[in-house]
């Protein structure tokens, strides 16, 4: 029998073993829970989610706990980790000259992309909501960039931001720069401009995806609210301020939370676009480099947990602030 077929069958036997084990565990869960006095349908339901729970424990919870442990170790991937206490966190706070510039770049990026992307997508969605013909086509066009692979987007924007005149952006804006007696910037070759390159690039995907979500939120706003406002003589701005934005606030809340998480974790584009030597890189890319290029997985894990805490704090802040600006109709009725 060919070797490859032998290997295929060998792999298949592992799958069979795993399948038998999972089904046995489901059966045991069902029986065990019933013996403990749980109702039949509840025991059955829990037994049926056992495969998913196993996946969660093995592929999510396991690595999360492992990375927390690794963050307290000197772990080079190839050898067993050695416990070093808080050394990695000390290094992160005061011993690594490249860490805080990366944090700063990432935070500034998030601070710019989240609000600007949100404002842009709301404006675009409001425009698309004005009875535009062929709305399906427009929605598709807006969403299309969001489904392109990150590598394609990075390649495209790298070409757009070429530092010479053949770059589309510089070619189009050269007359404006020359008005101020200046040359177009080097974008990704220029440490001072690369952040703006990434900010503009981020609109490509986020803007489109967010526009579709906001548009769906706009469509859900009851028409009678606008009709009542018209009867009361409300102008455009009054309708936006007192109807559109409050009704849309749960959608915006969701987009802000997801936007912060995505912005702090930005990885794909900066990985594909080579930055000038010595310039800080985004936190996730920095983490990847420490772990997989420099064999410092313990330190990389500490960076990952730092990122987690940052995202958690930002998300909590948004949640805490939501009572002041997010409008839930169900709460208003209480």
């Amino acid at each position, binding site marked *: 029998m060919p070797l490859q077929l032998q290997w295929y069958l060998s792999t*298949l036997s592992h799958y069979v073993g795993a399948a038998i084990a999972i089904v046995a565990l489901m059966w045991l869960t069902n029986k065990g829970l019933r013996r403990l006095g749980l109702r039949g349908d509840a025991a059955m339901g829990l037994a049926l989610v056992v495969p998913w729970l196993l996946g969660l424990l093995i592929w999510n919870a396991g690595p999360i706990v492992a990375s927390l442990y690794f963050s307290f170790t000197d772990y080079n*991937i*190839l050898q067993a980790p050695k416990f070093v206490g808080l050394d990695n966190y000390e290094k992160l706070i005061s011993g690594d000259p490249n860490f805080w510039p990366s944090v700063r770049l990432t935070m500034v990026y998030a601070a710019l992309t989240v609000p600007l992307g949100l404002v842009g997508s709301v404006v675009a969605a409001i425009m698309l909501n004005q009875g535009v013909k062929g709305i399906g086509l427009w929605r598709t066009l807006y969403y299309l960039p969001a489904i392109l692979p990150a590598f394609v987007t990075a390649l495209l924007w790298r070409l757009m931001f070429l530092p010479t005149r053949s770059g589309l952006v510089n070619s189009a804006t050269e007359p404006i720069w020359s008005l101020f007696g200046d040359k177009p910037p080097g974008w990704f070759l220029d440490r001072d401009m690369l952040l703006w390159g990434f900010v503009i690039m981020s609109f490509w995907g986020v803007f489109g995806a967010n526009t579709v979500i906001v548009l769906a939120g706009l469509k859900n706003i009851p028409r009678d609210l606008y009709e009542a406002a018209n009867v009361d003589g409300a102008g455009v701005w009054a309708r936006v301020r007192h109807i559109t934005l409050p009704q849309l606030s749960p959608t915006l809340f969701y987009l802000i939370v997801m936007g912060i998480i995505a912005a702090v974790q930005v990885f794909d584009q900066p990985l594909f676009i080579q930055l000038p030597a010595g310039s800080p890189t985004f936190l996730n890319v920095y983490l990847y480099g420490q772990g997989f290029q*420099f064999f410092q997985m313990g330190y990389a894990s500490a960076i990952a947990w730092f990122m987690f805490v940052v995202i958690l704090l930002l998300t909590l802040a948004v949640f805490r602030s939501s009572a002041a600006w997010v409008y839930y109709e169900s709460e208003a009725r209480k």
Partner: protein
Amino acid sequence: MVAMERRLWALPTYVLSVVLIAAACGTGGGTTAPSGGSPGGSAATGSPPASGGPKVTFRLTTWAGEDEAKELQELVLDKINAEATDFEIVHEPAPADYYTKLQTTLAGGTGADFMWLSQEYVAGYASRGALLDLTEHLAGVDNPAAKLDDYFPGVIKPAKYQDKVYGLPWISQPLVLYYNPTIFKAANVDPPDDSWDWTKFRETAVELTKDGKYGFTANGWPPIQQFIWQAGGEVITDDLASSPIDSSEAMEAVEFYKSLVWNEECCPTEETITEQGFGEMFKGGNVAMFMGGAADTFDGLDVVGASVVPKGPKNRANLSYVAVTAVNSATENPALAAKALAALTDGIHHWKIVAPRPELATAETILASIPAKWKAQKEGQVDAIVAATEEMRAFNIIPRHQEWDGLFWSEFQDLVWHGKSTPSEAAPGAREKLEALLP
């Protein structure tokens, strides 16, 4: 309720039945898992086979793409596997994200027995216990590829760490100076030859820079290390104890290199290279001279000449790209692995150019290894490639080489090439940081 429960159990029961039936079909007829482990399993295990017993299977992982993997299989592995009575090598290419995959499989205990490593990775993997010390095992192997004295001295070094051997080099590509004869002819300038030194080289590059063409191109490649060696300096000393990048020899080389890199007198600017592509400018006929590896080929150019690199103040050292096949330290058949490694390496030496052994680095063997598609272009380059092997050498590698390399660029080269600092100002501070990474 009972009926509903039955229906709910029907799906897992059905899935289980299907996989059981498949398994029964698969394992019927007395099929057993191959000796030496299974796919994704750990490195080859078990005792060496008795005479006539099943072969031990060794897994080889490489970064080979589709075409290269096909060639490796057909030109090397099929032959070895047919001849060997006690082992078999199975290729598992991983062309994307190679080192990330390699590290995670090694960490997970599922790493392949043999792995390709670029020269700068060997010391790092060896120092972290991932590689098998082959020093003793290779001594007992009767295969020309196992004789370390038969390798070029400058290229066997990266396969060693602390005087122990951790792999066998399978390729050593010296850098040569490629040139576009059409541009030289149009400018009525003689093409490069082995009489050229730095001065002649730069003068010619300046002379050829006109009418939208450039004489040469440099942007950090070719590496400054080569020029420092040619001036008699070092970036990491042989004993791996210091990084004398502020020596007078290094300063001389850096000043010369600075007169080339992104300098419009002789070379395209950084912006132009970013826009048009580094190698692409040479392929497009816009650059007259280009330093590249011996196996480089150039689409779009019918004729490409080659010469040895220009001589520096002290010598004509040129960087050799060296890659090594190393053995996983978890392999439980080290003696047989060494034998298989030697057979594999010898096979690759007859396939790839340039073989890191002088006896195979001849014009005849190189020409025999060149694919038919590139034969015409490479024929005129072979003499220069053979000549370049005489003074080729590899980097002195340290376990934290990637970090060292990154710092060497960001703390020194980037500052100097971009004019943010002078070589003599930047070197002492950079040296201190670089030496902190030495073992």
